[in-house]
C-alpha cells in the first residue's frame, strides 16, 4: 500500500532510481507525531472535569450566557442563530445585517477578540439559513463576565466602523 503523505521519518532511502519507505508503522506516520498531546491529555481532562464541577466556574458561565444572550438578542442589527435552552453552553452563532462576517472577524481580532468566522464547515446549513457565513463566539471555562462585556463593546464598536 503506498503512503498517502510524505514527511519526516517515513522514508528509508531516496534515490533517483527509486525510493524505499521506512518499516511500519513509520511509513504511514509522516512528520512529527502529536507527542505533546500524550502527556497533556490527562491534565486537560482533569481541568475540564474540575471546571465542570466548580460552582464558581458554573456561575460565571451562566452569567456570561445570560448576559451575552440578552445583548445579542436586543440588538436589532444582530441575528442570533440556534436555540436558547437552560442547558445551552455559552456559544453563540450570529450574523450582523449588512456587514460581512470576515470584516467583523478581522476588526474584532485587532481588538483582541478571537471569534470563529465563515461557513463553520457546514456549507449546506449556511445555504439553508441563506447566509454566506456566520460568526461564532465561544466562551471557555476560563473566560470571565468582564471579558464577555469587552466582547459586546468591541462588537458594537466594530459594527459601527463597518456599517
Amino acid at each position, binding site marked *: 500500500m503506498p503512503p498517502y503523505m510524505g514527511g519526516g521519518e517515513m522514508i528509508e532511502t531516496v534515490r533517483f532510481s527509486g525510493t524505499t519507505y521506512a518499516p511500519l508503522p513509520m511509513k504511514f506516520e509522516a512528520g512529527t507525531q502529536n507527542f505533546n498531546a500524550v502527556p497533556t491529555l490527562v491534565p486537560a481532562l482533569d481541568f475540564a472535569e474540575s471546571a465542570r464541577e466548580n460552582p464558581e466556574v458554573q456561575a460565571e458561565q451562566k452569567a456570561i450566557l445570560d448576559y451575552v444572550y440578552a445583548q445579542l438578542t436586543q440588538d436589532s442589527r444582530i441575528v442570533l442563530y440556534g436555540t436558547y435552552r437552560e442547558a445551552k453552553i455559552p456559544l453563540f452563532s450570529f450574523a450582523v445585517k449588512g*456587514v*460581512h462576517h*470576515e*470584516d467583523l*472577524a*478581522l*476588526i474584532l*481580532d*485587532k*481588538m483582541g477578540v478571537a471569534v470563529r468566522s*465563515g461557513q463553520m464547515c457546514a456549507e449546506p446549513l449556511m445555504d439553508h439559513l441563506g447566509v*454566506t457565513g456566520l460568526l461564532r463566539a465561544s466562551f471557555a471555562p476560563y473566560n470571565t463576565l468582564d471579558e464577555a462585556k469587552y466582547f459586546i463593546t468591541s462588537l458594537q464598536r466594530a459594527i459601527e*466602523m*463597518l456599517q
Partner: protein
Amino acid sequence: MTLEEKKQEIIEEFSLYDEWLDKYEYLIELGKSLEPFPEEKKTEDRLIKGCQSRVWLDAEEREGKLFFSADSDAIITKGIISLLISVYSGRTREEIAADDFGFVAEIGLKENLSPTRANGLVSMIDTIKNLAENGR
C-alpha cells in the same frame, strides 16, 4: 503622478496611523469610496480565485493604458482592492508587469491579515499582474 510617487504616497499615508485598527478604518473608507461596479459585470470570469470573500476585478484598455474596476461583498477586501487599483489603474501593461508590488510588504498589510485573507491579497496581485501580462 508616477507609479513610484503613488506608491510612496500610500506608504506615507499608512505610516500616519500607529494603530492597525486605524489603518483598517482607512481601508474601510477606501472600500466605501470605490466607484460602483455594474451588477452585470459580476461574472464568474471576473471573480478572483483564492479569496475568501468574493472579489470581482475588471480591466479595460484605453490609449495603451489599463484601467481597473472592482467590487467585493466584504468592505475591508474592497478597501484592499481599491488601494491596489488606485496604484495600478491608468498605467501601461509594461509598467505593471515590471513592478514588484513591494509597497504592499512595506505597509505591512499582509502580516496584518488573517492567513486566508493574506492568500487572497496574493491572488489579487497575481490577477492584476496576469491581466497586465496576458490580457483577460
